[in-house]
C-alpha cells in the first residue's frame, strides 16, 4: 500500500441512472461538495426512468454540475488528485456520458482515473458520516436495481451472501406504487402512505428460496398485491390503499430484516450497514435499528441525501480503490451489468 502523507482530493462523477452528480471528497471521508441534478420530475411523465431521455439530460447537465462541484468545494481541477467515475452497473447510455467525460478530463488534466462500481459506492456512503466504521462489516444493499446481502471483508473486497432471485426490492416498491396509482417514484410515496395504514391488515406471503436461506424473492409479494387488487375489483370491494401498502411494505421489510439478522446471528457480526435508495425507507431503518440494538450490533445508515444516487459516495469508494493502486485506462468502458466486487 502506498503511503499518502498529502491529502487526496477526489473529483467524482456519477451518471448511472437519472441523477447527474459530481462531488469533491477529501481522503475518502470528508465531502467538500455534493451536487445532484435529479431528473425525477421529467421521468414522472413516463411512469419510470426512460434511458434515452436520461442520457440526453446527462449530456446537457454534466459540465455545469462538475463546475458547481469544484466551485462549491473551493478547489480547481488542477488541485484534484484523482478522478473517479461510476462505470457500472446502470443504464449503459447514461453511464457512458459520465465515463467519457471523466476519461477526457483525466486525459487532458493528466490525472489518474479510477472507475467505481455503483453499488460499492452506495456501501461506501456509510464511511462518509461514520469516521469509526471500518471493515469488516455486513451490509444490506437495497435499491431499484439491487438487493444484496454482503460481507464487506476489507475496502474493495466483498463476499455476496444473498441476493434477489427476481425483482429488486425497490423495483417491487415501484411496481406496487404504479398498480395502486401512486405513481413514480414508488418508494417515498409508499413510505409516506404506509404511515397511515395498518401493516397487519393483509397477510402477504414471505417467500423463502429453497436451499438459499439468505436469498430474496419479491416477485411473489408483488404478484400477491396485484392479485389482491384484481380480486377486490372483481368483487367490487373498496381497497384501503394505506392498509394495502403498509402490509406490502411490512412483508418486504420482514424479508429483508429476517435475512440480515440470520447473517448477524450466524456469523456473530458486530457492525451492520445499509445502503441504496431503499435504505431511506423509514420502516426498514427503524426495524433494522431495533433488531440491531437488541443484539448489541452497531447500526450504520447514510442520511437520505447519501442514500439516493450521488457522487460523494463514488468519491469515497474511489479513494479506497486509489489507495490500493487501482488505475483505469482511456479505454475504460461502461459495463451495464458489472458484478459487485468484479474488477475490469
Amino acid at each position, binding site marked *: 500500500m502506498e503511503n499518502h502523507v498529502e491529502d487526496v482530493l477526489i473529483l467524482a462523477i456519477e451518471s448511472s441512472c437519472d441523477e447527474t452528480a459530481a462531488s469533491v471528497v477529501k481522503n475518502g471521508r470528508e465531502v467538500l461538495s455534493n451536487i445532484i441534478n435529479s431528473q425525477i420530475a421529467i421521468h414522472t411523465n413516463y411512469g419510470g426512468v426512460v434511458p*434515452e431521455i436520461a442520457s440526453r439530460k446527462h449530456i*446537457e447537465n454534466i459540465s455545469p454540475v462538475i463546475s458547481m462541484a469544484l466551485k462549491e468545494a473551493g478547489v480547481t481541477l488542477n488541485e484534484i488528485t484523482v478522478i473517479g467515475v461510476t462505470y457500472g452497473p446502470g443504464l449503459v447510455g447514461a453511464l457512458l456520458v459520465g465515463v*467519457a467525460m471523466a*476519461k477526457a478530463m483525466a486525459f487532458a488534466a493528466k490525472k489518474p482515473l479510477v472507475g467505481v462500481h455503483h453499488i460499492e459506492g452506495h456501501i461506501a456512503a456509510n464511511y462518509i458520516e461514520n469516521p469509526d466504521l471500518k471493515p469488516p462489516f455486513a451490509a444490506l444493499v437495497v435499491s431499484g436495481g439491487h438487493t444484496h446481502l454482503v460481507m464487506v471483508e476489507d475496502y474493495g473486497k466483498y463476499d455476496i451472501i444473498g441476493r434477489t432471485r427476481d425483482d429488486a426490492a425497490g423495483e417491487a416498491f415501484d411496481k406496487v406504487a404504479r398498480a395502486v396509482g401512486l405513481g413514480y417514484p414508488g418508494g417515498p410515496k409508499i413510505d409516506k402512505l404506509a404511515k397511515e395504514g395498518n401493516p397487519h391488515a393483509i397477510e402477504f406471503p414471505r417467500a423463502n428460496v429453497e436451499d438459499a436461506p439468505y436469498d430474496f424473492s419479491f416477485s411473489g409479494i408483488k404478484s400477491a398485491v396485484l392479485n389482491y387488487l384484481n380480486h377486490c375489483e372483481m368483487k367490487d370491494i373498496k381497497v384501503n390503499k394505506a392498509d394495502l401498502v403498509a402490509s406490502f411494505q411490512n412483508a418486504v421489510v420482514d424479508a429483508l430484516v429476517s435475512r440480515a439478522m440470520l447473517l448477524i446471528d450466524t456469523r456473530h457480526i458486530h457492525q451492520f450497514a445499509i445502503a441504496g435508495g431503499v435504505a431511506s425507507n423509514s420502516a426498514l431503518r427503524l426495524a433494522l435499528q431495533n433488531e440491531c440494538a437488541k443484539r448489541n450490533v452497531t447500526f450504520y445508515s447514510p442520511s437520505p441525501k447519501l442514500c439516493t444516487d450521488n457522487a460523494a459516495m463514488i468519491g469515497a469508494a474511489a479513494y479506497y480503490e486509489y489507495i490500493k493502486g487501482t488505475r483505469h485506462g*482511456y479505454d475504460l*468502458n461502461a459495463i451495464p451489468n458489472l458484478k459487485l466486487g468484479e474488477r475490469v
Partner: protein
Amino acid sequence: MNILAIESSAITASVAILTDECVIAEYTIHHKKTHSQTLLPMIDEICRMADMNLENLNLIAVSCGPGSFTGLRIGVATGKGIAFALDKKMISVPTLEAMAYNLYNTEKYVCSVMDARRQHLYCGIYYYKEGELQTKLEQSLLSYEELVSILNNINQSVVFVGDGIYAASDYIKNNMMCPYEFAPVHLAQQRASSVGIYAKYLYDKNGAQDSAQIVPNYLRPSQAERLLGEKECQK
C-alpha cells in the same frame, strides 16, 4: 490555430489535429469496437505521435449530429471533458455538412445521407458557390421516398456521400430520375479532418462556443417522447 477534431456519429471513429497549414495527424477506424473504447486512446495516440502539447490546442471541434445517439454523446462528452480541463472553446459541427466537405468545391450537388433505420435517412443537400458551402436542404430526417423526390425536383447532377448510400442504394437506383453517383468509400465516410476544416470555416464566420452549451443535434426525439406526443394528439 490548432484544432482537435472528433467524429463519432456512426460506426467510423475518427480524430484529427489540424494546424492552419496542414492536417498533422488523423486516425480513422471503422471497426466494431465501441467508441467508448477507441476514441480517447486514438486522441492520446495522435497527440503523442504529433508531439502535440494539449495546452497548444485552440479549439475542440466535435461532429454533433445527426447520427447514433450514443455515438454522438460519447464524442460530445469527450470533447467537453477535454475542453473543460484545458479551458478551451468548442465548435459544434453539423455532421452532414462536414461530410459534404469531403467533396469540397465540387460542381455537382452533394447529398449527405446517413442510415436512420426504418427506411429513413438523416440527410442534407449542398452545393458550392465561389468556394462556400451552400445549403439546399438543411439537415433533416426523411424517408427514402421524400429525399429522392426532393432530389428529382431539384433535377441536378448529384453525388451521394455517407453510409446511407448502402442502406438506401436499391431505392435510389430504382427511383432517381436525375444523374447521380455514389462517392468512393474514402470520400463517402465521415472524416475528422473534414470536421476540423469545416470547424475552422464556422469559427471564422461565427466564433466559438462555450463547451458547457454543446449538445448533440439528434434530429429525432426519443421513442418515449414520440409515443407520449402521439398519445396527447389522440386526446
